[in-house]
Every structure is written in C-alpha cells, then in structure tokens.
C-alpha cells in the first residue's frame, strides 16, 4: 500500500538554514547538508529546500547548497523559491534537484509548468499554491490564491487553479494554508480535502502542523497524500520517527 509521505522543509538563505534549529549533535545548526543527513537517518521521506531570499546573484549559492545536500542523499529532493524561468529550473535540476516547485511564476506564466513537464517530466514539476479562506464577489466561499509570498491576491480559487496546473503538466500540488502557517493549530483539512479530491496528482499539505494528531487528521479528513513541516522537526519538538510511529498506531500507512 502506498505510504503517506512526511516531508521536511529547509528554509535556506545564503546557504544557511534559517528558522531556529535545535538538534543536539549538529556541528553547525544552520548547515543544510548536515540537517538533511539528520532527517534522512530519522526516516524522512523527502526534502524540500526553499530558497527564501532567491535573487539573481544568489542563485549560484543555491546551486551549491543543492549540490551539498544531494551529494549523499538518496531520497527525493525538491527545490523552490525564486524559480521564475526555465533557466532557473535547469540550474536547480542540474545541481541535483529531482523536483522544482513553482509558485508565483506559475501563476504569472502557467505555460512554464508545461515547458518544464515536457523537458523533465511531470514528476519533476510541483505547483505550489498559497491560499486562504475567503468569500468572492458573489458571496461564495472560496480558497483565495495569493502570490509573492502571500502578499498579492491572484484572484483565483485554489481548487480551480490546482486543476488547471494538473492539466498543464504539474505532477504534484504543494498546498500551503496562509491562515494556518506558523500557527501550530493544525493543517487546514477542509481546504486540503477540497483540492486533493479535485485532482489526480498528489497533494502535499503544508501550514499549521503543531502536534502529532494534526498529521493523523490531514491524512484522514484532509485526504492529503503527503504532509510538509519545518519547525516542528527543526526544534526537535518531535522526531520524524516518533511521528511515523504515531501515524502507524493510527493505521495510516507510512515508511518506517
């Protein structure tokens, strides 16, 4: 049976992991390669490197980071943040990324999803969607999509955008709840289920992970295929292994 995936996100700036990290035994808490190694030992299923300050001159630093992480890691690695063009994606893929994640660029240029799917295959193309609960002009409840790190309304609904992204060649959806991000009150299961049931491709839920039962909820009522978290693991509030043991005890298939 297909396992539900647990994905750790490393927010990287200038080659260092930002957000607090509190693992014991790390030589340098901010070294992405060392953190990746630690997660791998703990049984993480996949890693995402999110370049949070991607600018033109820093892309080279990102490629170095990807290379350092990919060198000894033999699990899927996705890279996102600042991938705006085919050339940006190529740099990440050539450095060792298995998947590239597009957010604002996909909204601005949806054909980029198709271009990259044709070049690398759909399995390499992740469409990242940041959305929150809203009401449209007709008073209908929607999941409003935002671009540029949640600052700009895209005037689209997440369900409708996810379906279009799938048609255009995206192989996975990374769905982040703006309402829940950083709150630790649990994933937005309602929004996740709405998107997950509308598409055939996997949906990765993100935003709001706080306790072990939040993951049980997102894999059951949220119908998520994978769940992503950052700080819950970085701070060693819980280990990946403890999380998976908890999920298995709740009859959710995981890789242990």
């Amino acid at each position, binding site marked *: 049976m297909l*396992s539900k*995936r647990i994905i750790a996100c490393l927010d990287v700036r200038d080659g260092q992991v930002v957000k607090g990290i509190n693992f014991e035994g790390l030589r340098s808490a901010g070294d992405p390669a060392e953190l990746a190694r630690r997660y791998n030992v703990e049984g993480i299923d996949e890693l995402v490197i999110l370049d949070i300050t991607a600018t033109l001159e820093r892309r080279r630093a990102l490629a170095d980071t990807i290379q350092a992480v*990919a060198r000894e890691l*033999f699990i899927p690695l996705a890279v996102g943040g600042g991938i705006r063009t085919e050339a940006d994606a190529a740099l990440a893929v050539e450095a*060792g990324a*298995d998947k590239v994640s597009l957010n604002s660029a996909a909204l601005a240029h949806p054909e980029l999803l198709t271009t990259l799917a044709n070049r*690398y*295959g759909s399995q390499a193309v992740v469409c990242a969607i940041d959305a929150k609960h809203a009401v449209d002009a007709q008073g209908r409840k929607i999941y409003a999509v935002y671009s540029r790190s949640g600052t700009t309304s895209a005037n689209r609904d997440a369900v409708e955008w996810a379906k279009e992204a799938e048609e255009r060649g995206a192989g996975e959806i990374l769905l982040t709840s703006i309402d829940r991000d950083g709150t630790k009150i649990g994933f937005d299961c309602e929004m996740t289920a709405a998107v997950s049931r509308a598409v055939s491709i996997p949906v990765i839920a993100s935003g709001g992970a706080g306790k072990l039962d939040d993951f049980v909820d997102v894999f059951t009522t949220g119908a998520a295929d994978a769940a992503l978290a950052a700080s819950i693991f970085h701070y060693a509030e819980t280990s990946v292994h403890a999380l998976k043991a908890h999920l298995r005890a709740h009859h959710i298939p995981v890789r242990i």
Partner: protein
Amino acid sequence: MTRIALIDYKAGNLTSVRKALAAVGAEVFTPETPADLAPARGVIVPGVGHFSATVALDDEWRRTILGLVGAGRPLLGICLGLQWLFEGSDESPDLKGLGVLSGMCRKLRGESADGTAVKVPHVGWNSLERLADAPIVDGVPDGAQVYFTHSYVAPVTADTVTATTHGERFASIVQRGVVAGVQFHPEKSGEIGLTILRNYMKMVG
C-alpha cells in the same frame, strides 16, 4: 571501477542516477552512438515520462543492446527503462519495446478490486512483495519500501521478482538471466535502492 553505459535518450534528467551509481562504485559513461557501447560491461536504460521517448532507441540501439545481453553483459532498466524491456506499452501502441520480457505495459486502473479509488500517477513510497529469489534483490527484505513515480505498469509474470500493489498488483522488480528491471527509482530509494544498484554491479562482476 567497472564501465557501465548509461543510455541518455532524453527521457528525464540523469543527475540523480549518475550520483547513485557513483556511490556504488560504477564508472559510468554515456554512449553517443550504439558503436560506443562496445566497451560496456553493463548497460543501464533509465528514463521517466512517456513511452514515446523510447523511439530514440532505434533498431541499431536495440540490436547492439541485444547483442551485449547475448554476450552476458547485464542490462538494467529503470522506471520507463523497465517498461521498455517488455513487448510494448499501451501508452505508445505503435512502438515496440525491446521484447526480452513477455507482456505489455498498460495504465494503472486507479482502483482496487473492491472499487476503492487510488490516485494515478502512483507517487511515493510503496512496498516490495517478494515473489521469487533473484540476484537483484539479494539483501532486500520482503516488504521494503522504495520510491515510485509512474502511471503505467508491467504485468506480473514468471519473470517478476517483486510485486507492488497500488489498486492493482504490478511487477516492481523483474529479472530473467542478465536482464533486470525496477519500476521504482533506486537512486531515490535510500539504502534499499543503493543495495539494488550494488546487486546489479555484482551481476556485472
């Protein structure tokens, strides 16, 4: 170091495959033409995406690869490369596979026998159900999980070493003599994946 030909027919990026092969001690080269295959001690056909990409592996490539297999040089197909070992695929009915294994590849139905829906593509970690012993699975425990990403599958036949279930059961590892194939990505499947690549290298000798 053992010279392994990694065939690049432009079906996906090979960075991860190269990295994993380097980790198990393979010296990899990419042949430009079938004639370049002569020094290869083994041949790996990787690939992701649509079966139509295998059109690049034309008659001359096929003849040369079949010749090497006949001479006892191990052939490993990965993902789309496994599907290519069979007679063909419903994904591109006009193209023939290498045909060293019998059976046709077809799309996952997206539901199990009891009607429960599963998503297609099949993406993520799933388990290997051991059906037979073979050198390619030496040291791989029954139930070990590996990373898949695909929509088409090969049938379970006498050459199936492990099966995997996603709605329906399909061949996840095959081996017949010096020909082996894996539907998943050993380069992305942690230690289990590296074990399988090491087993292939042992077959090469």
